[in-house]
């Protein structure tokens, strides 16, 4: 009975415009600490694009099964440094960073993320 209920809830959750996540790791300190629970809106980016400063959940470009919590640091058209070279973000590219820059894997190492890799915007912590 409990398993059936779990399946129903899981099915509803998959269709819901929001998702719940628990934070692992310290790359978003001091904004988010390990264990923080957040609700992410998947709907908000249906009518607008991510803007600089947005806290987002995106998929790791090299591992799409791996959701990452990052902050948008630059948007399409802006110039950023990736590795040792300057790079102008193309259409549909976002540059994301961890707030704890000394301990974060982000666009500095894996490059920009694309729109289809962005899951949603952090709505609130609970």
């Amino acid at each position: 009975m409990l398993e059936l209920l779990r399946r129903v809830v899981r099915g509803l959750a998959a269709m819901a415009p929001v998702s719940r996540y628990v934070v692992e790791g310290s790359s978003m300190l001091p904004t988010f600490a390990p264990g923080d629970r957040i609700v992410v809106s998947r709907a908000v980016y249906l009518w607008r694009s991510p803007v600089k400063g947005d806290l987002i959940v995106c998929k790791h470009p090299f591992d799409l099964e791996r959701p990452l919590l990052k902050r948008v640091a630059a948007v399409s058209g802006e110039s950023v440094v990736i590795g040792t070279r300057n790079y102008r973000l193309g259409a549909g590219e976002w540059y994301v960073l961890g707030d704890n820059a000394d301990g974060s894997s982000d666009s500095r190492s894996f490059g920009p993320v694309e729109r289809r890799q962005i899951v949603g915007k952090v709505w609130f912590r609970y």
Partner: protein
Amino acid sequence: MSLLRPLLRTLDGLLPPRRVHAHCDIPCGIYDPHLAQVGALTVIRMNQLIEALQKPADGASKLDQDRYENSLARYVAVKEEHAELVKREVRVIWGDYFRPEHLEKHGNLHSTTWSIMKLASQARQQVNMQVAQDLVAEVQRFAEIFWDTKGVPVKRQPSNQTVGGELVVPAN
């Protein structure tokens, strides 16, 4: 929001939230034996709490029995968890950070690491304050080796925690 929070927490119990990664998954070169030391001190603290726990007398109420068993279970679980944390932290530093030239200068590196692994396992298996104290001592030795390879002088400072004991930290 105040109503939403307990609702979401209840939902979490039924269907846990997904994990979102906010950590460094490349070799960033950041290592620190501090967590291992905290883990080892926590093992001591759990031994202290277990030793201080009063077993309810025969005929005690069910509530008192439950409270005793709940506390004991929690202390044992935390002891397990932190002894394992010590092993993991030390293993990562030993495997990923140390290089052959470090071993040349510190010939006891492997034996210290090995000793930590054995002591941490014993700390999980037993309620044994001596083992816990030996574990802290070996982890402190490991921390001193670590900082020496970085050319960083260290000092031992009080942990300033209920458990007492000391932490090896950079002197400056």
